[in-house]
């Protein structure tokens, strides 16, 4: 594997006509010969990135470099890149040979050379002698192979694969995963693979790029992504995980789920954290042993292991174990320090830029994000301001220019509440994602102005629910 970047995305953003930004300032380097997977839930922008590299979409801002040269102005036919499309996109009016030779014919390759190359790629995809077959006589798996053959016969520098296995059944998909991997080794070219299937991404790739919401969440080897998730989203999206809110104590100790755990990761005392524990990293021990005590609430057999849920006080822990435990059995849970992954809590959540737009008798109108709230002046910046004659005065009794006063407005996700009446509360929006955190859910609510709010709630809501967010006025914090 060479160490040069073959593809480089530099500050790439993409917005559509209606101003929805689907890609938000992405930087990404892909090395020559790598098998890179773009992984994320639907709507995260992974296919858009692939289409921009292929030339079917152009970035609104930013550059796409191939071998150091900006290819963003080039049309798809001028790029040394080929695509395997999601639904194969084989030409139904041509037979297998003509489909594969389509690109070669355009380049004016001689008949003899063309025959040779087609035979060669059919050999690679294991469909020798299929030249004369019509496309509609092929099975899904065979069409998939022909689509790959049609792309690689052009000897592209980069092969783009847009969820190519999603239409295949489970067994065929597993088979094709391994075959694609060995094809990648054989050809030695760069593969960029798009999928929403995290297992597929972990199995196949040298490098996984986890995307959500048009932003890169983490880039790393499959092991890195699984063992050291960069944030709660990645932890939740890749594999199963137990996530708990907690605080760091001194000396590599963390407190969460009402217990104290020895950890490997170290952060300053008092740092707010999310602790991520994989279900297979929890050991069920005798009652009284281990850090947590609980009762088994449900057991499901999964072929090679049991999915066991243990209720520890108000916290729930998912455990994957090989021994069978029974419902209502009292157990202890033991977690080794190196199995606890600590993620620093994202302190930028629910922080917005705010301005005072109106000064009344004893109160001010504070505008931030989508909200306009009336607050007592004493609540602003811990009583730093006063009002006299309808003007805002600072502690030195000087009038403050409202245009120059920018406040940092924030609220604690735990202190806010969701309401099913969207009209209630400070702002309204739609739930775009949520995670289960030990004893409650953490919801991300997006308003129609595309501003995100994070709210903790113990009740289960669904993605897409329209909700109002209620924040008690006295719990809105402001700072300069």
């Amino acid at each position, binding site marked *: 594997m060479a160490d040069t970047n073959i593809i480089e995305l530099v500050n790439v953003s993409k917005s559509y006509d209606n101003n929805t930004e689907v890609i938000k300032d992405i930087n990404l380097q892909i090395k020559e010969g790598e098998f890179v997977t773009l992984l994320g839930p639907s709507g995260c922008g992974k296919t858009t990135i692939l289409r921009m590299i292929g*030339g079917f979409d152009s970035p609104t801002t930013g550059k796409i470099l191939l071998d150091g040269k900006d290819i963003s102005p080039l049309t798809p036919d001028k790029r040394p890149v080929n*695509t395997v*499309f999601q639904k194969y*996109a084989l030409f139904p009016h041509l037979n297998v040979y003509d489909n594969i030779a389509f690109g070669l014919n355009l380049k004016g390759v001689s008949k003899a050379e063309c025959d040779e190359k087609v035979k060669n790629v059919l050999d690679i995809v294991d469909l020798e002698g299929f030249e004369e077959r019509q496309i509609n006589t092929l099975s899904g798996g065979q069409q998939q192979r022909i689509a790959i053959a049609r792309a690689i016969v052009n000897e592209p520098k980069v092969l783009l694969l847009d969820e190519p296995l999603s239409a295949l059944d489970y067994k065929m998909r597993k088979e094709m995963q391994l075959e694609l991997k060995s094809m990648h080794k054989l050809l030695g070219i760069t593969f960029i693979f798009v999928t929403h299937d995290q297992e597929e991404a972990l199995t196949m790739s040298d490098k996984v790029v986890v995307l959500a919401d048009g932003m890169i969440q983490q880039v790393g080897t499959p092991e890195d992504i699984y063992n050291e998730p960069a944030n709660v989203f990645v932890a939740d999206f890749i594999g199963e995980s137990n996530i708990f809110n907690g605080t760091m104590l001194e000396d590599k100790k963390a407190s969460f789920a009402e217990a104290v755990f020895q950890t490997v990761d170290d952060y300053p005392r008092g740092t707010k954290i999310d602790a991520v524990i994989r279900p297979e990293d929890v050991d069920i021990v005798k009652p009284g042993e281990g850090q947590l005590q609980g009762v088994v609430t449900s057991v499901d057999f999964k072929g090679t292991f049991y999915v066991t849920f243990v209720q520890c006080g108000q916290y729930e822990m998912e455990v994957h174990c090989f021994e069978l435990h029974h419902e209502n059995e009292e157990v202890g849970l033991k977690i080794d320090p190196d199995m606890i992954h600590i993620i620093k809590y994202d302190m930028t959540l629910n922080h917005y830029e705010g301005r005072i737009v109106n000064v009344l008798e004893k109160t001010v109108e504070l505008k931030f994000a989508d909200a306009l709230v009336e607050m007592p002046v004493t609540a602003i910046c811990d009583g730093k301001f006063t009002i006299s004659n309808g003007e805002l005065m600072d502690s030195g009794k000087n009038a403050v220019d409202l245009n120059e006063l920018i406040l940092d407005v924030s609220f604690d996700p735990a202190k806010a509440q969701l309401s099913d009446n969207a009209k209630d509360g400070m702002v309204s929006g739609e739930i775009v994602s949520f995670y289960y955190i030990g004893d409650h859910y953490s919801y991300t609510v997006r308003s129609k102005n595309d501003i995100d709010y994070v709210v903790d709630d113990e009740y289960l809501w669904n993605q897409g629910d329209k909700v109002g967010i209620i924040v008690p006025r006295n719990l809105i914090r402001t700072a300069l």
Partner: protein
Amino acid sequence: MNNKNTLSTYYVLPYIIFSVLFILLPLFVVLYYGFTDRTGHLSLANFIHFFTNSRTIGTFFYSVVIAFLTTLFCLLLAYPIAYILAKGVYRGRHSFLLVFVLPMWINFTLRVTALKEILTYFEGNIAMHPFFNTIICMVYDFLPFMILPIFNSIVKLDDSLIEAGYDLGATKFQTFVKVIIPLTIPGIVSGVTMVFLPAMTNYVVLDMVYNSTYIMGSLIGSYFSSYDWNNGSIISAVLLIVIGLMTIISNHLINNKKW
């Protein structure tokens, strides 16, 4: 099972009755009159007359020319219109398609009359360019019949096939010729069939614009109005044969997409 089978045989009955009464019987009548003489004896005289009489064969070729030009211009106009409607910025908004199909709701002769007025406004005396005006009126009348089937076949065309063309190194033009056209052949063929044959026999336009009866439809009419059922029928029969041949060829084209 058996019961169900006999029941579904009954469902077919209305169709069979309809086919016999309105398709097979008229067809037989046409063929019978076409291949018999006035005394009712079997004869090829009408058939030979058709190909040897300068009036009939002349009209036949003249009709073919008019129909061919009408079809050609309809195709040249309809394809880009259908493409823009199906894939352009108006995609998925069928109201724009309606704009092109709406004239079909207005009476045929009314449309030709209106168009005649417009042409008179531009040309003065429309009798100066009768052939040209005939083609304009014909194209205007038949355009929706060409747009609709082509539109339908382009709408069905998966965008990823077009993108696959670009991806494999084809320019826009090459993709159009090698991917888009071959995959929309069924639409083109049915559009051509729907325009060419009616155009060959459409005498209303010619009559109104040209004051001419020099087209197959008029010719049949003129034979029938002089009670010459035999010569009128043989023209119909020949047209039937032409239709039959065209259907066979177009089916062949659609099924055997490789040319």
